[in-house]
């Protein structure tokens, strides 16, 4: 036991530090957790009186300026925390949908009797599986909504989560996860119908 920390308290504290560093690569974060645990074990300091964000801020400031910084998702991360499970789940769903739409698009182009162009095939795939909303009365403009929305969502989530409190981060991820799951169920229900 370190200082006044109860058993398991250090793990929760390290997780709180980690959630402030979600935008860093998971390998680096794993090393950071290991280093900080070792440091706290060695010094015997009770960190419970120190805001975890303070360690996170100092650790961030100590990084090599050229080190990678990126969005909190994708294959670079594994899922050591619940938040990351959810984030990666959302990314995974988006990836599955992308593959699914791509498959339909390629299928439409490759069909001998089809003879449709790429845009028409893509539109057809979207309209069949995920009806693209009409923008200014044109469905074609709506075709950009899904990929653009996904990219903007990734960028916005990354920015919002970077400096957010753990509570706000949990809410953001929770709502996003529910929306993504709702979308997935919608697609699956259409496929099974």
């Amino acid at each position, binding site marked *: 036991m370190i200082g006044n920390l109860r058993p398991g308290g250090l793990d929760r504290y390290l997780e709180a530090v980690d959630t402030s560093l979600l935008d860093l690569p998971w390998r680096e974060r794993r090393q950071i957790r290991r280093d900080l645990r070792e440091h706290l074990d*060695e010094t015997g300091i009770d960190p419970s009186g120190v805001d975890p964000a303070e360690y996170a*801020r100092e650790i961030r400031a*100590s990084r090599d300026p050229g080190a990678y910084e990126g969005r909190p998702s994708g294959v670079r991360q594994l899922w050591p925390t619940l938040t990351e499970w959810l984030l990666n789940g959302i990314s995974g769903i988006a990836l599955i949908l992308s593959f699914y739409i791509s498959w339909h698009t390629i299928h439409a182009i490759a069909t001998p009797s089809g003879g449709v162009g790429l845009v028409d095939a893509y539109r057809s795939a979207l309209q069949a599986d995920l009806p693209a909303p009409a923008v200014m009365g044109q469905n074609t403009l709506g075709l950009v909504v899904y990929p653009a929305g996904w990219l903007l969502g990734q960028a916005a989530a990354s920015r919002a989560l970077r400096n957010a409190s753990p509570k706000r981060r949990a809410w953001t991820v929770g709502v996003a996860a529910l929306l993504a799951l709702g979308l997935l169920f919608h697609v699956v229900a259409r496929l099974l119908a």
Partner: protein
Amino acid sequence: MRGALELAVLEVLSQETTYGFELLAKLRSSGFADVADPSVYGVLRRLETSGKLTSELIPSPNGAARRYYRLTDNGRAALARATVEWDALVRTMAGIRIDRTRD
């Protein structure tokens, strides 16, 4: 104050190889009474990342293994530069204070 803390850490490590807790205690007893552990930890990480010090984990008979920090040649050069800059700053500040006293 971050620059001052970095200089202080370099100075302590130029005198002896030491580990985190001892370094923190030394800084606090030397006048950095309110220095927090995250700040010192951050400085140590930054200095190590920039190659100004190296560290080695050595088992301790009294409990958890201790990470000992040692200044590199790069660190000694940085300390020499920072000391010159610090002395210049102190002289500048002293000059300003004398001017203010005269006014």
